[in-house]
């Protein structure tokens, strides 16, 4: 008897899969998207699929790529559903993904009532952090270890390419790596706050996407937004969880 739903979120950087039993996430996986999103989606599908799975929903920019998908839903709707599940009564969602960021306004039932996407530019997305880590020769996993060493550093460039030269010139001025990294993180959070300020959010905000794993991002985003920001250990899986939740309603 089918009782599980499978949600797969194919983002620009990672593919996430989630199995959902109607109440809980019972299994999940995450792989790098690489240059072959269709193949990676299939890997995730093979790893999680079983006769118990009664419905498959795909989301993310690769949502059309899996032939076994029963339904394709945009990541906006899925992130909203996932955030409502993980964060409870949040007023909105901020998702910082690999190549875009989104701000979603939720109604009381966790449905989308408005949204904005910054999908024209890599500034303020995961790509920006990857660029920074490459230049500062650190791993994203080090992000939470950075601590202020000197005066606050401002990164002002709005463009990933220009920000790269800005970081390089700061290094040339012998500014501490930690301070540069914190400056970059603050600049991303400020940019995200400005971009989302067009939505009349109330209450707390759920933070999803790959960067939600890092406390330094959550706390800086909270400061920039001026309202409580909550996240969840499953924050990066938010879109896939939303897809699986929606899929569960369709199991016959």
């Amino acid at each position, binding site marked *: 008897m089918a009782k599980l739903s499978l949600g797969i979120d194919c983002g620009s950087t990672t593919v996430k899969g989630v199995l959902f039993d109607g109440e809980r996430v019972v299994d999940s996986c995450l792989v790098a998207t690489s240059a072959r999103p269709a193949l990676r989606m299939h890997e995730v599908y093979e790893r999680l699929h079983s006769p118990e799975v009664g419905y498959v929903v795909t989301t993310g*920019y690769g949502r059309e790529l899996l032939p076994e998908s029963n339904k394709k839903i*945009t990541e*906006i*709707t899925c992130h909203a559903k996932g955030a409502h599940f993980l964060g409870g009564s949040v007023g909105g969602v901020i998702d910082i993904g690999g190549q875009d960021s989104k701000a979603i306004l939720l109604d009381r039932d966790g449905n989308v009532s*408005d949204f904005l996407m910054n999908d024209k530019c890599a500034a303020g997305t995961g790509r920006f952090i990857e660029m920074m880590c490459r230049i500062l020769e650190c791993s994203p996993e080090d992000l939470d270890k950075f601590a202020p060493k000197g005066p606050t550093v401002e990164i002002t460039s709005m463009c990933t390419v220009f920000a790269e030269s800005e970081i390089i010139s700061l290094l040339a001025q012998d500014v501490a790596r930690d301070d540069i990294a914190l400056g970059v993180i603050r600049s991303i959070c400020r940019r995200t706050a400005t971009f989302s300020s067009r939505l009349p959010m109330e209450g707390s905000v759920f933070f999803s996407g790959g960067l939600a794993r890092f406390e330094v991002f959550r706390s800086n985003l909270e400061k920039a937004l001026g309202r409580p920001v909550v996240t969840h250990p499953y924050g990066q899986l938010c879109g896939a969880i939303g897809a699986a939740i929606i899929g569960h309603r369709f199991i016959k």
Partner: protein
Amino acid sequence: MELIKDLPAIFEEFSEQRKKSFMAAYECKQKGIPFIGGFCTYLPKEIPYAMGGIMVGLCSQTGETIPEAEKDLPRNLCPLIKASYGFAKTDKCPYFYFSDLIVGETTCDGKKKMYEMLGEFKNVHVIELPNRQSENGIALFRSELIRFKEVLEEQFETTITEDQIRHAIHVYNEQRKALKEFYGLQKMDPPPRGGLEIHRVLDGVQFRFDIEEATKQIRETTQRVIDEYDPEKYKGRKRILVTGSPIGVSMRKVVEAIENNGGVVVCYENCGGARSVDELVDEDNPDVYDALARRYINIPCSCMSPNPGRIKLMDRLLDEYKVDGVIEVVLQACHTFNVESYKIKKFVTEERNIPYMFMETDYSDADAGQVNTRIGAFIEML
């Protein structure tokens, strides 16, 4: 694509029109018919028609000639202006090529300045369009229309009488009525047709030289659509109104995204649609120039300040077409529509409680994926 396959023959004829256009324009010119090229719906087509000439819409709908235009114009300018200039420079558009006179109008800043450059290598006359729909504005516009008539008379060595203009007004009013009946079919629930088919007719008619024949064919198409009405075809779809800048070739990308994601375009509040067609010229006004000035200046484009007519028109269209959601599409660097979107959003969401989405695009397909996701998410939200 499936929607296009289902088109009745007469729709096909409108789209083919543009492929055959070079030869058609050529043949027209052999008969000695003057071509007046215009860019904007604010130019009264009645005046060139009155002298036996024809007003043609100048190609500015594809990005093909933008690189050529960017040799002279700034890159961060609206793609419509760049494309217009590029087509003029490259002779790639039959209407530009065959235009004996090009008529500009002082609508937005980018176009005004572009016409000055165009005037260096084309025969250009610019009509001063006031940006306020006041009595002063109407009086100025009326005198500009008389000046336009005189320019035509001088350049084409002819006389244009008021009776000829009165006849032209009638001919174009009939076409407007026919177009309104045609696109008005989308008021039906479910609507009979997809948005691309409606757009194709509205767009195609701008490239017809035989105005009365085109009107007759629009009426036949309307009847055909009624006869072939299949309520199952667009049943259960979310009814979308598209508003914003004239977006040329990008209309396909937007409408396809709407209709591939469970929506259907029921109404266009833009330059090819209700904005320019909705109002008739007053045939009872004894002063034909006053009648034209009043009707044309009333077009609710964002270059007018203030522009209350757009809200008024939108208010009525939202009811008539039972709209579920409004999608505003604005061209990159189209400042007036971009700024005015604030008021439109406020009106649609706060006063009418209807969901609204804004998006900016250009003539390229580079953002097709993002457009699809945004529109998909918007329709899922409805």
